[in-house]
């Protein structure tokens, strides 16, 4: 697809042409969330609608093709959008994000009795990761190891648990499978999101005391509403203000916030994507897709 064939839509929104947001359907609850948001926006006289995609790449392509005003993007999809826009001489910017999108970390865990005490001890071992395109369970932890001198595939073997590729690790199943492989002795280490260590302990996937956190990545940021230069700042400001005005005190909106996993929306920032940018540069994971779509 090239710019020539695309028709950038008239981005002045109205009832016939509502503000259109793309999101990826990684779970059935996604429908409930966006239907709820739609009602919330419409009650505030902001014509709003959404389109669900089965994977982030198609969403980013549709966004660049002018079929969306904004896309609710995973961190990797943000980088895909930003880089693809750049290649086409356009600009992407990060709008609002959830409070829970800021300052996440990934951890690499090992069995307590494994004798693996330092990152260097992973040499020659097998490390389980989440899906190929999961920032938190694959790309960032592998980058974290790389920055400490350990090259995936050369210094240690990577065992990927590819659950729902295209959904960028939104589904926790890949991480759970990685941890089960660790506990079952099939692999020597597993990469997961920090908060999931506690979750897997609670649900019994990790027996108490059976695992140790070997190393933790630097903080990074997760999803954001990505916009391109074709949305005027006034429209973006209204869109953002409505989101930022959602209050956890409001019983109508609280269930939606609970489902989407946040307590409040925050102004977007792009400072938390450095590690993932580096991972993309180092491992070249999105290059073939970028080359095919640029």
């Amino acid at each position, binding site marked *: 697809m090239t710019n020539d064939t695309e028709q950038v839509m008239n981005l002045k929104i109205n009832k016939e042409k509502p503000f259109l947001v793309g999101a990826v359907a990684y779970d059935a609850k996604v429908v409930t969330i966006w239907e709820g948001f739609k009602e919330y926006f419409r009650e505030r006289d902001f014509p709003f609608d959404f389109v669900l995609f089965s994977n982030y790449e198609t969403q980013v392509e549709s966004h660049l093709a002018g079929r969306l005003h904004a896309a609710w993007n995973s961190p990797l999809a943000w980088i895909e959008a930003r880089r693809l826009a750049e290649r086409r001489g356009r600009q992407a910017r990060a709008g609002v994000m959830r409070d*829970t999108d*800021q300052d996440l970390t990934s*951890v690499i865990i090992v069995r307590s009795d494994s004798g693996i005490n330092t990152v260097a001890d992973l040499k020659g071992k097998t490390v389980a990761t989440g899906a190929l395109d999961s920032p938190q369970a694959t790309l960032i932890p592998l980058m974290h190891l790389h920055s400490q001198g350990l090259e995936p595939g050369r210094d240690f073997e990577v065992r990927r648990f590819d659950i729902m590729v295209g959904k960028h690790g939104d589904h926790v199943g890949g991480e759970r499978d990685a941890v089960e492989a660790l506990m079952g002795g099939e692999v020597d280490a597993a990469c997961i999101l920090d*908060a999931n*260590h*506690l979750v897997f302990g609670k649900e019994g996937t990790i027996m108490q005391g059976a695992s140790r956190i070997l190393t933790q990545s630097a903080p990074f940021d997760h999803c954001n509403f990505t916009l391109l230069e074709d949305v005027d700042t006034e429209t973006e400001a209204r869109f953002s203000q409505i989101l930022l005005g959602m209050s956890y*005190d409001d*019983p109508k909106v609280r269930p939606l916030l609970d489902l989407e996993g946040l*307590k409040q929306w925050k102004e977007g920032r792009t400072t938390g994507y450095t590690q993932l940018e580096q991972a993309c540069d180092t491992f070249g994971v999105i290059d073939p897709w970028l080359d095919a779509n640029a």
Partner: protein
Amino acid sequence: MSTDLGVAGTPAKQLDLHSLGFDRGGHLLLKRDLGLVPVGATVAVYGSDEALPVHLRGWCRQQGHAVTWPSELGEEARSQPGPQGSPLVALVRRGAAQVGRWREAEKSGGADPKQEGSLVEQPPAFWGVAGRSATVERGAPEWDFSLNERDELWAEEVPRIYNQALAAQWDPNTAVDWDEPFELPEEVEDAVVQVMTYLIENEMAALVVPSKFLAQIHPHFREVMQLLAIQAADEARHVEVFTRRGLLKRDELGLSTAGGQESLKTLYDEADFAMASFLLSVLGEGSFLSLLRFLRDHAPDPITRRISHLAAQDEARHVAFGMAHLRRHVTLDPTMREKLATAIRQRHAALEHTAGLNEEVFDALLLLAAGSWEIDALDEGYRKVLELKEDMDQSRRRRLEQLGFTPDDAAELSAMHTRNFM
């Protein structure tokens, strides 16, 4: 003890978890301490569990609390140990989410129904299945409990009758000596089986009618639901014992007539709780009470007498509940009496084309009361059955008068009650 943590200020509380991990309950202590400080205030968390920084980060992010890490503090501040000597892990600033969640939450009435204001006139749908006096979060789903008016449901006597019912539960296996020997003439046994067949379908109707309403009652009126539930359990037991007696010496039950079922179905089809309660509990079970007492006194064998006695005790409670809440209802709403009268007339009209009490049941009652084919015994049996009908009429009239009907109206309405007794 207060500790100055430089730029982060002085924490409102210090929590030293020592070696306790967040995966072993440490989060409860932090939750408690955060609950004790105002929104925006800080709890300094100390501890030595090596996973604590990772767990704290994830947990605080999800709970909406902000975290300041020791690396963001000055050297002096971050090196001060906690109250038990553990190192500083993080400063946690309380977020507003928990407070927000319970803002405008509503207390669902009071626990004690005797206290003024405990029971509201019409509980809102979003109180749902919450126990009375619980604090209900705003945004809870709306439950469709269509019976939600206090005046329609409540009676002061409900908790007392419920407690009586609890204390009076009996076990059919032990309350009845099923092996007690007796011999009846074949035809008298047949008559008992026919009466049992009739009792079973009446009890079955008495089971399904309140059960149908039970699930529509707003749980704010928990005691009414409990009473109806135990009433349903009573009827289930009655169905059992009458079935067991019917099949004690026979392989199958007797005859079920169209007219009998027609009469019972009008109860089942009654959509209004107060009307159904009136027709079933006050008039139906009221008449049934006379019949069970008649069987208790005149049945030809000890088992039938025993089970009729047990069932009659339960039915008396059902009648008491029906009377209690209808008495309250007619007091609060004087137009109610006319509606009750209309319900009787409508049912009478609906059943006019039916045969009434089937001949089989009437003859069986007569033979059962007589106990034999002797002429004198039959004469005596006939007299007893007439006395039973008279007793039923008198009891209905008395209850109608207790609900405020004049003696003339009570007599007229009693006469219109179904000839099928229930």
